[in-house]
């Protein structure tokens, strides 16, 4: 008798578990999710490591000392004055537009 009751209990428990599993499997799905905008594909930035051996080509400006620059300006002014004096002494188009050796105009 006891064996029979225990068998019935196991049977009910097994049926209950089966019913719950079936209900979970057949439950209707919720509202569909809104369509998400397509995410842009982000490409990983190219690695810049020393191992790649890429040397950035940044031009390095060559700066002469300020005294040298001022001397160059002075030489330019002297040359331009000499050219202008030549023009004033004998005005003509060729002398007006004659080139000097100044690095500022060459």
């Amino acid at each position: 008798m006891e064996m029979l009751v225990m068998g019935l209990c196991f049977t009910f428990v097994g049926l209950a578990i089966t019913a719950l599993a079936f209900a979970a499997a057949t439950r209707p799905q919720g509202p569909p999710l809104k369509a998400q905008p397509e995410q842009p594909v982000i490409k990983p930035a190219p690695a810049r490591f020393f191992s790649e051996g890429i040397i950035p080509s940044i031009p390095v400006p060559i700066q002469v000392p300020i005294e040298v620059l001022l001397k160059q300006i002075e030489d330019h002014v002297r040359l331009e004055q000499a050219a202008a004096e030549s023009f004033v002494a004998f005005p003509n188009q060729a002398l007006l537009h004659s080139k000097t050796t100044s690095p500022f105009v060459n």
Partner: protein
Amino acid sequence: MAHELLNGLSPAEADQVLALGSRRAVSSGSSLFRLGDAAECLFLIERGRIRLSFPMLVRGKEEEVFFEEKAPGETVGWSAMVPPYRFTLSAMAPLDAAVIALPREALLAFFDRAPETGRRIAFNLAILVGKRLQLVQAMWMREIQRAVESRSVNPAATR
């Protein structure tokens, strides 16, 4: 010493004019006048040299840039005779120099007393100013020509 401002004057007249002024020593490296200063005197150079310059921004810093150098016998500071009586350049002595400073008021009073001498000095002054004008005009024309040439070579510069 023959001064360009006193050309055509007799020695006695020149002495009278020079007597209006005072001798001023300008030690090496020191300033005679600065751009923008009130111009009360013009200066006849007796000894040394006077260097004229103007301020320019070079690499973000103000520097005095060479404009012209004057020698004994030459005149600087004629802004003292031209309104608004302000110096338009700066002047300094690159080495020990001496000048005769002629005050404008004394000169004008002398011109009233001696109009013929005054006329000659005014004529000499007109020559100095005219020479400077011609020189700067020629330099300006050359600069404009270069600006036009550089833009015709590089049309992007005109945009």
